[in-house]
């Protein structure tokens, strides 16, 4: 079996769960096995997952995600049901849980995979960027289960069906009392760049902190959110939560506009799977143009106000 570990965030099913189910099904088909889901969270959400064509949903009922409790409980489950492949989200929760689980099971774990394949020999190939996105490494695991964390928004998502399949089976919790969650402060969704459909990012080419005012204005006009390169964050121009790239967030919006970002490999690795990419830069040789669909050459302080005007004029013309 392929076992995917679903994720809950503030009582909601995290979207990475659907990515994992989608990818899990594809792999399971190739090795002619089924897909189970282990879900840490509430019963209502576990019930919802029955609409996604899974064989079984194993529920670890829990109000709060505690890594140690999750790892112990899932380790017992895995020893019982013996899946060949275990997929976990390469999210902050997943990357905190998965290594503990892998150590308990004394098996290999590949981090933050962007591609998973079964080759003609039936081997499970785990593909991930390494060395700051400079190389793509293909990794195999010689122990069972073969475990991988999977990057958000790179796999094809599973779709909901009206009919239900499978059933919920409860997992015996292994309570952990050395850790307590005292408080939880939600981050505004608008600020969450990983969920945004449109991202306008600013980089070193802005030249000053104030430049982000223009980026923000541009983002507001297009209904997007503001992203940033590492350089802009390191210089204190904008908060780390906006950082796109390997040391920040990986994003895959419908539209990514890079303004004054030359495009280090680390930055490119964090945004190159965006559906459409526009780059605004003075330097024609900037690496960002290697991943862009559309480029605009020149001074961004001249270009962006013109683009804002054009968008507003277009909207007026179309009466919206």
């Amino acid at each position, binding site marked *: 079996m392929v076992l995917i570990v679903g994720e809950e*965030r503030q009582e909601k099913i*995290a979207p990475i769960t659907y990515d994992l189910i989608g990818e899990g099904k594809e792999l399971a088909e190739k090795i002619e096995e089924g897909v189970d889901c282990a879900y840490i969270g509430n019963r209502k959400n576990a019930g919802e997952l029955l609409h996604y064509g899974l064989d079984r949903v194993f529920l670890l009922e829990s109000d709060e995600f505690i*890594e140690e409790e999750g790892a112990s409980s899932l380790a017992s489950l895995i020893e019982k049901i013996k899946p060949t492949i275990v997929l976990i989200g390469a999210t*902050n*929760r997943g*990357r*905190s849980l*998965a*290594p*503990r689980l*892998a*150590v308990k099971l*004394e*098996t290999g*774990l*590949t*981090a933050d995979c962007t591609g998973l394949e079964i080759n003609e020999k039936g081997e499970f190939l785990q593909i991930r*960027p*390494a060395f*700051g996105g*400079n*190389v*793509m*490494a*293909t*990794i*195999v*695991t010689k122990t069972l289960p073969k475990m991988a964390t999977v990057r958000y928004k790179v796999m094809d998502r599973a779709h909901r069906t009206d009919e239900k399949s499978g059933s919920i089976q409860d997992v015996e919790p292994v309570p*952990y009392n*050395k*850790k*307590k*969650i*005292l408080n*939880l*402060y939600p*981050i505004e969704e608008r600020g*969450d760049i990983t969920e945004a459909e*449109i991202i306008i990012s600013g980089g070193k080419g802005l030249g000053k902190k104030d430049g982000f005012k223009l980026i923000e204005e541009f983002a507001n006009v*297009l209904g997007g959110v503001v992203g940033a390169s590492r350089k802009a964050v390191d210089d204190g121009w904008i908060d*780390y939560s906006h950082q796109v790239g390997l040391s920040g967030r990986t994003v895959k919006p*419908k*539209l990514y506009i890079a303004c004054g970002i030359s495009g280090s*490999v680390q930055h490119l690795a964090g945004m*190159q799977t965006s559906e*459409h990419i526009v780059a605004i830069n003075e330097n024609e040789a900037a690496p960002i*143009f*290697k*991943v*862009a*669909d*559309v*480029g*605009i*050459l020149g001074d961004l302080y001249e270009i962006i106000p*013109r*683009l804002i005007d*054009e*968008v507003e004029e277009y*909207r007026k013309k179309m009466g919206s």
Partner: protein
Amino acid sequence: MRIVVCIKPTPEGSELAISPETGTLEREKGDLIINPFDLYAVEEAIKIKEKQKEVEITGIAMAPPKGDSALREALALGCDRTILLTDREFAGADTLATSRTLAKAIDKLGFDLVICGMKSTDGDTAQVGPGIAEFLDISHVSWVSSILELGEKMVVKQMLEDCYREVEVGLPCLITVTKEINDPRLPSFKNKLKAKKAEIETWGLENLGLNPQECGLKGSPTRVVKTAHPSYRKEVEFVDEKGFIEELEEWRIL
């Protein structure tokens, strides 16, 4: 309080260190420096030492002998002691074997708190910190952006995608820290000189009492079977502002 900081000696400047022909890392070239994320771990340990009495900071790294340069940096910054885990048998370790080896050494040292950077810039797995905690059978909190309280227990702020959590955790424990936690200081020239001459303690397989089958390549369940350069996908089309609007229309953004 005994604090152990885990340090990964990493190649300086990842772009230069990759062979264009083979796509593999040219480890011989260039110096090994402290993994940039680990600087935040070292800084946080020093900040604790400045505030509390009787704090001893040990920096620990698993690397080839030339990894001592990173530990000298740690000494210059303010670590009291450093240990380099180095042995031919440690080479080729994946995150499981690395976590096991580091955990064994940390256990031997004795500790109250282990601090790690949130990940390394070269491997980028973020797996070794939580892996060490599991081998040591202690609690861990990853992605810590602030320590709010530190006494018998600690309270930390954990950064997740959708929220911050305040987590209370008993000691001993392990935390991995993010870039938000502090602004790492630079070492003074005097301390740099002192660190240059310092003797770096080294431990090998025998000091740790590990079996060769548990370390390095032999103790690693994963293998890299292929490396390739990432392929960039397309030809860029240069446009003006009218062209930009046309594209947005075609992509159904407008």
